[in-house]
C-alpha cells in the first residue's frame, strides 16, 4: 500500500473508534448505484524502481538536441543552486502561506521577489505571480479595463508583433469581459510596429495599448513614442517584456514621459527549465495607483505583536476566497515554486550577471545570423535592431528543413509559416548565452549541407 502508513491493527482500532464495521461502510452515503467498480482500465501499480525504468526509457527516447528555438521559451544556464534549494521539502511541499507565522520563509522570499521584479521592470508594485506570460497578458488587459474607466470600451490595440500564442490566449480568455483586440501591423522592412500604424487609430479611445519589447521577431520597438501616443489617447500602456532583456533595455517604468502602466511577461527565462512549456510563471507589476485592481496574491511587510517585522499576504479583499463573484480574478493557486526558483536565480546572477547573460545572448544571436546568412540563399528578413532572436528566410519551405536538422540533432528554430505566412519561408532563430561558437558553426554547416 504505497504512501499509506496504516497497519492492520491501526485500521481495526480506528474503525472501532468511529464505530464503523469496515472502511467500506464509511462510503455508505454514496448511493450504491453510483459506486464504481475496480477501475480495470487503470494499469496496476508500479514500484518506484519500475516507474524509474519507465521514465528513464521515455526520457532517453526524446534525448537531447542542440536547440535554437526561442519564440517565448528560452534556454538559459540555470545555476545548480537554484533547483537544489527550490526543491527542498520546506519550499516544495508547503502551500500558500495562509498561516503567515509558519510560512515566513515563503513570504519573505515573495517579498524579495516583488522587490526584484519591480526593480527589473521599474514599477512600484508586483503580485506574487500569474500562471505564465500569456495569461499574465490576459489578466493585464482585464486589469486595464477595471483601471481605465475613462476609456472603458475594452478596445485593446495589440501589435501583430506580440507573441501570436499570447494573442490567442487573450482571445480565449478575455472577450467575455469585453476585451476586444485590434491588431496593429508591423513594418515589413524593419519588423517594428511603426508609430504611424498606431496613429491610424487616433481618437479610437483605446482602453489599452500593448507593446512587446523585444517583439516576437526579436526586434526592438520604439517604445517611448508609442507609450506617449497611447497616453495621449487616454489608454493604459501594457508592456510585455522579456525579463532577461531588462538588465540592458530601458525599464518599462521609464518608457516615454510617464512610463508603462502595467508590465507583464513570461518569467521562464529567470531560472525555469524549458520543460516542455511549463511550469513557468507570469509576472505582473504596476503603479501603486492600480494596486487594488491587481489580480493574484500580494505579500506585504508588517509587524508582529512584539513590533518585530514580518511578512503576510495582504489586500486579500481583492481575491476570490473573500470577494467571490466580485473578485478581481479567479486566480488562487499561482506558480509559487517557480517564483522561488526565479528569486534564487535573480539573486545568484545579480544585476551584472543578468546584463552579461543578455549581452552574450545578443552577441550569439548576431553571430548566428551572420553565420546563417553567409549561406547562399539565406537572408535576414528584417533590418531593425534586434535582441536575442531574429527572422531569416530560407530559399525553400521551412518544415522539411527543420525536420532534417532535427534528425541531425539540431532544433533549428520556429517555423513562421503558419502564423506569418506573408513572410515566406521564414524561420525565427535564437541563440542565448548557452551557445558556443562551435555550436553556431555546427548549425551553419548542417543547414548549408541541407540546402546544398
Amino acid at each position: 500500500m504505497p504512501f499509506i502508513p496504516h497497519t492492520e491493527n491501526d485500521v481495526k482500532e480506528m474503525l472501532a473508534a468511529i464505530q464503523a464495521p469496515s472502511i467500506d461502510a464509511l462510503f455508505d452515503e454514496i448511493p450504491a448505484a453510483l459506486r464504481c467498480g475496480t477501475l480495470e482500465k487503470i494499469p496496476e501499480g508500479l514500484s518506484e524502481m519500475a516507474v524509474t525504468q519507465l521514465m528513464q526509457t521515455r526520457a532517453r527516447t526524446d534525448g537531447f538536441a542542440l536547440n535554437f528555438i526561442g519564440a517565448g521559451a528560452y534556454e538559459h544556464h540555470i545555476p545548480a543552486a537554484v533547483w537544489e534549494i527550490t526543491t527542498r521539502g520546506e519550499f516544495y511541499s508547503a502551500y500558500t502561506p495562509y498561516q503567515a507565522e509558519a510560512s515566513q520563509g515563503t513570504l519573505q522570499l515573495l517579498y524579495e521577489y516583488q522587490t526584484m521584479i519591480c526593480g527589473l521592470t521599474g514599477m512600484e508594485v508586483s503580485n506574487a505571480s500569474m500562471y505564465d506570460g500569456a495569461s499574465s497578458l490576459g489578466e493585464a488587459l482585464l486589469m486595464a479595463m477595471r483601471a481605465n474607466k475613462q476609456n472603458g470600451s475594452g478596445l485593446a490595440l495589440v501589435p501583430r508583433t506580440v507573441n501570436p500564442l499570447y494573442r490567442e490566449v487573450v482571445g480565449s480568455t478575455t472577450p467575455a469581459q469585453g476585451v476586444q483586440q485590434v491588431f496593429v501591423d508591423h513594418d515589413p522592412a524593419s519588423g517594428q510596429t511603426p508609430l504611424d500604424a498606431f496613429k491610424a487609430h487616433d481618437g479610437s479611445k483605446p482602453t489599452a495599448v500593448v507593446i512587446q519589447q523585444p517583439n516576437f521577431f526579436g526586434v526592438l520597438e520604439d517604445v517611448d513614442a508609442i507609450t506617449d501616443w497611447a497616453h495621449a489617447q487616454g489608454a493604459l500602456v501594457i508592456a510585455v517584456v522579456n525579463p532577461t532583456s531588462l538588465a540592458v533595455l530601458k525599464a518599462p517604468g521609464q518608457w516615454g514621459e510617464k512610463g508603462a502602466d502595467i508590465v507583464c511577461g513570461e518569467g521562464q527565462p529567470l531560472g525555469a527549465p524549458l520543460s516542455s512549456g511549463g511550469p513557468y510563471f507570469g509576472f505582473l507589476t504596476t503603479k501603486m495607483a492600480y494596486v487594488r485592481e491587481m489580480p493574484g496574491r500580494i505579500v506585504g511587510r508588517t509587524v508582529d505583536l512584539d513590533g518585530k517585522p514580518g511578512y503576510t499576504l495582504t489586500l486579500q479583499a481583492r481575491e476570490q476566497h473573500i470577494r467571490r463573484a466580485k473578485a478581481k480574478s479567479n486566480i488562487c493557486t499561482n506558480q509559487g515554486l517557480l517564483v522561488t526558483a526565479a528569486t534564487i536565480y535573480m539573486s545568484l546572477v545579480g544585476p551584472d550577471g543578468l546584463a552579461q547573460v543578455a549581452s552574450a545572448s545578443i552577441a550569439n544571436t548576431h553571430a548566428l545570423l551572420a553565420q546563417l546568412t553567409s549561406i547562399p540563399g539565406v537572408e535576414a528578413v528584417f533590418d531593425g535592431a534586434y535582441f536575442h532572436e531574429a527572422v531569416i528566410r530560407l530559399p525553400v519551405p521551412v518544415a522539411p528543413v527543420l525536420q532534417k536538422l532535427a534528425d541531425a540533432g539540431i532544433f533549428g528554430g520556429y517555423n513562421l509559416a503558419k502564423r506569418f505566412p506573408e513572410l515566406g519561408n521564414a524561420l525565427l532563430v535564437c541563440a542565448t548565452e548557452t551557445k558556443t561558437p562551435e555550436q553556431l558553426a555546427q548549425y551553419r554547416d548542417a543547414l548549408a549541407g541541407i540546402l546544398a
Partner: protein
Amino acid sequence: MTEKLLFEVSRAGRAAFAQAPGVEIDLSAIPESLRRKDKPQLPEVSEMQAVRHFTRLSQLNFSIDTHFYPLGSCTMKYNPRACNKLAMLPQFLSRHPLAPESHSQGFLACMYDLQDILKNVTGMAAVSLTPMAGAQGEFAGVSMIQAYHKARGDLERTEILVPDAAHGTNPATAAMLGCTVREIPTNADGDVDVDALKAVVGPKTAGIMLTNPSTFGVFERRIKEIAGIVHDAGGLLYYDGANLNAILGKVRPGDMGFDVIHMNLHKTFSTPHGGGGPGAGAVGVSERLKPFMPIPVVGKDGDRYRWLTEQDLPQTIGRLSAWMGNAGVLLRAYIYARMLGREGMHRVAEFATLNANYLAARLAEKGFDLAFPKRRASHEFIVTLKKQKQEIELTATDVAKRLLDHGFHAPTVYFPLLVPECLLIEPTESEDRETLDAFVDALAAIWDEAKTDIAKVKGAPYTMPVRRLDDVRAARQLDLRYVPPAA
C-alpha cells in the same frame, strides 16, 4: 530565528561570479535610446550568501515534509520524491515546448497515458491537461458550457448556479466569463436544497458548479436527482475537483452525471504545492463537450503521438497557455498515478476517509462540535468553535495560531464561510494514527488552556520566527517591496 532581507546583505561589487557567462558587456547592437541607464534593483551577493539565505528562509516554513498540515480543501498529502526526481530527468527539463513531435514521443506518451488514466478514473469521455491550476480548469469548464450552448444556438443561458458552500473560485470564474451567479442554499444536513434549486433552474440556466463531497466535507446524496433537474432544464453540470481525494476509485463524476470536471492534480495526484503552486487543473468532459476542449490535447495515430490542435478540434475554446500548461507538473502526476495504480487509487479515498472519520470521532469524543455530526465525514470535516467563542472567546484564529506552537500547521479556518468559527480539517491518507492522536491531544490542550488563560492563547504563536502578525497594518500601510534607506 529571523533572517535579514537579502537586499540588506547586498553590496555593490559583490556577485556570484561563477554564474555570469564571463563576457564583456557590449550593447552596440542596441540603439542608445533603448538602453537601460540604471542598474536594476537585484541583490549583489556571493553564491554562498544566496545559498545560505534561501536555505535559512526555507527552514522558517512549515511543510508536509516537516509537519502535519491538515489544511482543509488543500489535500496536503505526501509528495513522493520519485515524482520530482523523474520529472526532472535532464531530457525532460531540456525539452523545448516547440520541439518536433518526432523528438518528443517519450514525453507525449506520458501525457497521452495521463489523459487516459484521468479519463478512466473520473468516468469522463476525454481529458485536456492544459489548464494550469484549478481556477483555470474552472474557467475552461464554464467556457466549454458556454460554447456548447452557443453552438446549439441556445443563446439565453447566462446564469450559473452555485451552492452557497462552493469555493470562492466558482462564482469568481462564472463572473469572469460574464455569467450571472445565482446562489443555491444548503440545508441543515449539508446537502443542496433541492427545492431551492428547482425554483431557480430554467431556460437561463447555463449550468451548475458543484463539488461533491461539498466543502462541508459531506457527500451530496441527491446528486443524481440534481443532475436530472439541471439536465432536464437544459443546463450542464460542472464538477469542482478539489475533493477527488475523497472518492477516487469509489464513485466517478462521470457516473454522477457531470458534464465537465476539473481535477486539482496538486491535490489528489500529489504534485507539489510549492508554497502556492504550480497547480494543474486538467479538465475531463463528457461526449457532448469533447469538441470544445481547450487545446492542445495529445492524440495518437497508430504508434505515433501528436498534438491535437485547432485543425482537429475546430470548436475548441482555444488556448489557455502558450504551450500545454504545466507540463512538469503533469509528469509528476503521471508518475504518481503509475505508482498508485489501480489498487492504490481505491486506497487513497479509503484511507483519506478513514483518517478524517477517525479524527472527527476522536474530536467529538473530546467534546468538540462537528458541523455535521450526523453525517459521515468524507476526506475532510468541519469543527465549529461557536460554543467556545461564546463561552470563552476562543476563536478559530486563536486555535490556529496556538496549534503552530504545538508543531502542527493549522486547518483551514473561516471556510466554508457559512459555518461560524470553523476549522476545516483534512488529514489526508498519508498521516499515521499516532500523529492524528497527537493532533487531538493538542486541540484538547489548547481548549483546556483557553479555559484558564485565554490571554495566553490569544498571544500565540510563541515559538515561530515571529509572533502574531498585524494583518490590518499590512493592508493599511502598504509595504510591498524593499526600498533601500536613502544613503
